[in-house]
């Protein structure tokens, strides 16, 4: 009996089973629900650490189940999978703690945590997928399990946001399905392979492959919020803060970006895709999204909406990094997958804290909030500086490698995009920081809650501090072993240099 074959399945089960049990728990079984949630998250973390150690020592973790006559459901832990997997696992743990604090005493908690666990199951599945059909399966599961979270509040606005989310993702899913089946009829395999599995395909299939690429990217671009498919994301802001945090940092948006990385590296292969001439339009699209998102963010007064447009812009760094199609830019793009997740989740946690503690939803209400909630705003500040790309926060590392990579690949225009975006980031984050730290507070906060002599509840305060510290640490200790940057370099090496 080989246990290595079962670990990926166990990773999936560690959130699926608690989720299914939680659905059947009564609302007031709070302790049991919390125990299940945290136990699942910790077990998953332990399993992931085990696999990290194993993969480092050249073990192979792979689960195969037959899905269709010639197609298998494959869960495999490769370097790229593990990068995303580790990110989701850590952030799930943190977000669970946060959500328990955030949803204290609100209705429908069993339903919420049930779908929350399903959502993480789907994300983890996306990370571990070893072929395109497995990816598709979990990608659709992600759509289905996040919809209830987006509409969780049950208000009219939430309903409309949910509808918009569905319309976008269902169409995206349909395009992805079409692209996947088409690819399968051409190649007879969907197995993710370093440098792609299309190299042996004849010249005559090139036009078809270009269309397939477009279909796949359009399907994934919906979740990755590429302009013009981004419409659902700002609307989905009505969801509770932990959901927004997870949606923006790991689950939905990242699943899309991760999918794009997969398609370019492990389906088409960078060189093959560049040869087809499809990476350059994608790079331009990503650049447009980066600038567009930043510009829109400038004019949002609603804090979560501003962060949402910022996400649209920041996630496209990942796409840009892989679309530049060079080894160094790849490092920048892939590592940003992790960095953006940590920084953005910090920002959303902080926004949630402000809303939950003081009733602040708008930037214009934030005057002097730094004095009332210094720790929260410290975390926010770290996150914001990271987004701008200021050293030593992790965001700097991503931008540095993106810039270097663009120069190395001879695409100087990218530098201007990066610089412009950094300026715009500064233009929409610095005023918030200035207002929070240096302006006089108003007479009363919109809706203040007191938590003894602390600024807010522990469960709300700790998660953003932890993630902010991690973002800081990944910037300062970027070249330490096992850092995301190290993994990203490993992945890039495998894609570009290995024989």
């Amino acid at each position, binding site marked *: 009996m080989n246990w290595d074959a079962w670990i990926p399945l166990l990773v999936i089960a560690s959130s699926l089973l608690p989720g299914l049990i939680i*659905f059947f728990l009564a609302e007031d079984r709070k302790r049991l629900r919390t125990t299940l949630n945290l136990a699942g998250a910790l077990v998953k973390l332990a399993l992931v650490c085990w696999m990290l150690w194993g993969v480092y020592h050249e073990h192979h973790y792979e689960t195969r*189940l*037959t*899905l*269709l*006559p*010639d197609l298998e*459901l494959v869960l495999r832990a490769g370097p790229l999978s593990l990068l995303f997997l580790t990110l989701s696992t850590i952030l799930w743990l943190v977000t669970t703690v946060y959500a328990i604090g955030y949803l204290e005493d609100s209705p429908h908690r069993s*339903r919420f945590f049930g779908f929350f666990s399903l959502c993480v199951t789907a994300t983890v599945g996306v990370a571990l997928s070893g072929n395109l*059909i497995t990816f*598709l*399966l979990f990608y*659709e*599961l992600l*759509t*289905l399990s996040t*919809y*209830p979270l987006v*509409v*969780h*509040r*049950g*208000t009219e606005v*939430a*309903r409309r946001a*949910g*509808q918009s989310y*569905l319309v976008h993702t*269902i*169409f995206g*899913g*349909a395009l992805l*399905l*079409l692209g996947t*089946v*088409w690819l*399968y*009829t*051409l*190649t*007879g395999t969907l197995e993710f392979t370093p440098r792609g599995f299309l190299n042996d395909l004849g010249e005559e299939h090139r036009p078809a492959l270009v269309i397939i690429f477009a279909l796949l990217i359009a399907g994934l671009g919906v979740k990755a919020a590429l302009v013009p498919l981004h419409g659902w994301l700002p609307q989905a802001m009505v969801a509770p803060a932990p959901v927004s945090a997870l949606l923006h940092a790991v689950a939905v948006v990242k699943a899309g970006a991760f999918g794009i990385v997969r398609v370019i590296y492990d389906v088409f292969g960078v060189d093959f895709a560049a040869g087809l001439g499809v990476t350059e339009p994608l790079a331009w699209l990503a650049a447009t999204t980066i600038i567009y998102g930043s510009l829109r963010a400038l004019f949002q007064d609603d804090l979560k909406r501003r962060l949402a447009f910022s996400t649209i812009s920041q996630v496209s760094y990942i796409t840009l990094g892989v679309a530049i199609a060079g080894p160094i830019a790849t490092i920048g793009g892939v590592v940003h997958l992790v960095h953006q997740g940590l920084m953005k989740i910090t920002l959303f946690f902080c926004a949630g804290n402000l809303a939950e503690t003081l009733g602040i939803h708008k930037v214009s209400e934030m005057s002097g909030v730094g004095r009332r909630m210094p720790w929260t705003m410290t975390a926010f500040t770290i996150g914001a500086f990271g987004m701008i790309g200021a050293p030593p926060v992790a965001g700097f590392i991503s931008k540095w490698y993106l810039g270097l990579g663009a120069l190395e690949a001879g695409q100087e225009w990218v530098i201007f995009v990066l610089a412009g975006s950094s300026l715009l980031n500064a233009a929409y984050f610095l005023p918030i920081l200035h207002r929070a730290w240096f302006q006089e507070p108003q007479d009363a906060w919109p809706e203040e809650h007191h938590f003894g002599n602390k600024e807010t509840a522990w469960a709300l305060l700790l998660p953003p501090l932890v993630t902010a510290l991690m973002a800081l640490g990944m910037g300062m200790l970027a070249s330490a072993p096992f850092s995301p940057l190290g993994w990203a370099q490993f992945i890039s090496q495998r894609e570009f240099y290995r024989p």
Partner: protein
Amino acid sequence: MGALLSEISWGVVLILLPLAGGIACFLFPRAAKVLGLVSVFAVLLSVSGLGWNIKVNGIYRHAIGGWNAPLGIDLYADGLSLLMLAATALVGFGISVYSADYFEREDAARFWPIWLLLLAALNALFLSADVFNLYVTLELMGLAAVALAALAGGRDALGGAMRYLLASLLGSLAYLFGVALLYHGFGSMDIAMLAVRVEASPAVWAALGLMSVGLLLKTALFPLHFWLPPAHASAPAPVSALLSALVVKGSFYILLRLWLEIFGPLGGGVDTLFGLLGTGAILWGSLQALRQTRLKLLVAYSTVAQIGYFFISFPLAASAGVTAWSAAAYLVLSHALAKAAMFLATGNVLRFGGHDRIADLDRVVQRLPLTACAFALAGVSIMGLPPSGGFVGKWLLLQAALTQDRWDLVSVIILGGVLAAGYVFKVIGHAFTLADISHESREVPAKMEWAALLLAFGAILLGFLASPVLSLVGIGVPFGVSEVSP
């Protein structure tokens, strides 16, 4: 044990058992519920027995009374028959468990005998090997189904049942004319013999036309679907489930059989016509479902749309036979489970809230989480999202369409899925809106909720069982020899 299992002639058991059960229910109305449940469960076991038999010995053939065809009557079962029998037994058992709590005393006494008669007719239909027997079972099935549809009484139900009766009779009559033409021309009614003897001639074309029209009418393929929504929507929930999940499949099975054995090789563009009608069904049915305001009608129109998918396989079968037919078989099976679950869930909603207006569903759905979950899971299969039986079916269908560059059909398949998502979420969305809970309601027994949920779960589970199921269906090579896979 194994020897004993293959000694028994399961085919005969499958027909006599529900018949005897039905008569017993009729004679002892007080014990109808228990007798009915026991009979259906026994049928389920017998199907497993037959399955075992077929898996070990290959095609099952039994000459009743020892007289072989053409003089006697043959029972015949290959993988395809087994699939239909299994679907009927599984779904039938789920619906029976549900009905045990749904129908009260008098209704129960009426429901169980007719349902068991219907079950006997369906089993006989799937086991028949000649076109005349198919006619007899088709007629029996139709009459039993109409009786069930009229069970609720009331003007709506009787009106719907009346239309259903007329459509059904007209359908069987057209079919019978076709049978007569074939018998006159080729002197046999055994499908296997006809397959050898039939060659293109005006009489054969006329037979094909008559039989197809009759069966299409009974299968409710667009534009001959007019009788289905009222009949399915006005019947009691378990009956709607039976009609939508099983009865329309009966006539489809006959059509598929005739096509595979007799008419398919003739060619002649009929498959293109079927494809066109299927396209029409998908689009029209989905759009109609989208604009319904009553839940039951929405589900009924969804059936109209899903039937369209079965017919998309005909034009695709020309050069991707096994893939296309496997897709159809898989869609039939998963639709049976999912649609039964949907109708049962709808029945729970109706009982709980007393209405099925979609706009006012909020508080009902939210207080029946298991039912909402059943509807959602069934919806996943209907939409064709993974993992589900519906996904497997659509994947195979898309694969068959793409290998032949049939872009028209590809876009219809995709579009149908998107439209289905539209009407499923139109309902599911209500599970999450804010609603004040101040509503008088009638309790729904747990068994009714679980029956719906387990059927829906079965449709999801099928998403992981494609290989074993398709290899069972392949026994006896009902779909011909495999083309080279891509």
